[in-house]
C-alpha cells in the first residue's frame, strides 16, 4: 500500500520551502457587492454605477474579500490534501500576519490564484503542544500580476512525546 507520508505529519515534518497552489477563484459582481454591504459599505464596492465615477473607474473588491478568500482556498485545499488524517497544520489557528499588501484592484470576473510557501519555523513552543509555521502567501490575477501578499504564522501540532500519548501508557 502507498505510504501516505504527506498526509500524516507533525510540525517537525513540515519543511521550509514546501510550496502549494491552493487553487483559483473567480470573483463575481454579486459576491463583491454582498461582501462590501456587510464589511466595507462604500460606493466603490457596493454600487456599480457610482463606482464608475470613482478613482478606480469601476467596482472593486473589498481588500478583505481578497484575503478572506485565501483562507477559504486554504481550508478547502487542506481538506483534500490531508484527507482527514492528521497533518500538523490542520486545526491550527493563525496567530499573526505581517507585510500584508493589496497591490492591484480586483474586479468582477477577475480570477485569482493563491499560493503558499513555508518560509520559516520560528523557534517557539506554544502551550507545550504547538509550533509555528510561517508562510508567504500570494495571489496572482489572470494577467499574472501579483495583487496581494502576506506572511502568516499558523500553529502546527508538535509530535506528541510518548509519555503524552494515553495509548502508550
Amino acid at each position: 500500500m502507498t505510504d501516505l507520508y504527506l498526509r500524516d505529519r507533525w510540525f517537525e515534518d513540515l519543511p521550509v520551502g514546501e510550496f502549494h497552489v491552493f487553487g483559483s477563484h473567480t470573483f463575481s459582481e454579486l459576491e463583491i457587492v454582498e461582501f462590501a454591504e456587510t464589511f466595507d459599505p462604500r460606493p466603490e464596492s457596493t454600487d456599480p454605477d457610482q463606482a464608475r465615477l470613482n478613482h478606480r473607474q469601476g467596482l472593486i473588491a473589498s481588500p478583505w474579500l481578497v484575503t478572506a478568500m485565501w483562507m477559504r482556498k486554504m481550508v478547502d485545499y487542506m481538506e483534500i490534501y490531508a484527507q482527514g488524517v492528521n497533518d500538523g497544520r490542520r486545526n491550527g489557528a493563525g496567530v499573526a500576519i505581517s507585510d500584508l499588501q493589496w497591490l492591484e484592484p480586483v474586479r468582477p470576473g477577475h480570477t485569482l490564484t493563491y499560493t503558499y510557501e513555508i518560509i520559516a519555523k520560528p523557534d517557539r513552543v506554544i502551550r507545550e503542544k504547538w509550533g509555528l509555521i510561517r508562510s508567504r502567501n500570494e495571489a496572482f490575477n489572470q494577467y499574472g500580476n501579483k495583487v496581494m501578499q502576506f506572511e502568516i504564522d499558523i500553529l502546527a501540532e508538535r509530535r506528541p512525546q510518548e509519555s503524552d500519548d494515553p495509548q502508550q501508557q
Partner: protein
Amino acid sequence: MATPSPSDHLESKSIELDQSAIVAFASRFDPQPYHLDADAADQSIFGGLCASGWHIAALATRLVIETLVDNGLPFLEMTAISRLKWSRPIFVNEHISVRVTLGSSDEESPIANTRCQTLEIEVCNGNGAVVATMTANAAIAIDAALAAST
C-alpha cells in the same frame, strides 16, 4: 470640524457578533469546526464557538473607516497591514470596537493624489480588553475633487 492630528486617539462605536453572523462568515470563508459548531469548538484550542480572525479583521477595518470619515479624514482605500496580531478570541454575542491612533504620514502612497496615513489600531471586546492589534496604511485623499468623492 477639526482634522485629527498625530497621536489623537479616535474611538469607534461597537458591533455585536451573534452566532448567525459568526457562522455565516465562517461558512463562506473559514469553515473550520471552532467557527461553525459549538460542541466541536468547546473541545478546540479556543474553548468555545468564536469568530474567524478574518471576520474580526474585516469588521474592525469597517469600524476604522467609519471612524476616520466621521473625524473628517477623506479615507480612500486601505493599502497595507504591516502587522496584525490576534491575541484572544471573540465568542458569540461579544462586542468589538476599535481605538485608532494616527501615526506617521511619511511613506509614499501607492495611489495617486493620496497620502499614506499609518494607523495603530486596537480591537477591543465589550470589556475593553484588546483582542487584536493592527498597524495599517490608509490612503487619504489630498486632492479636493478626490476627497469630495469619498
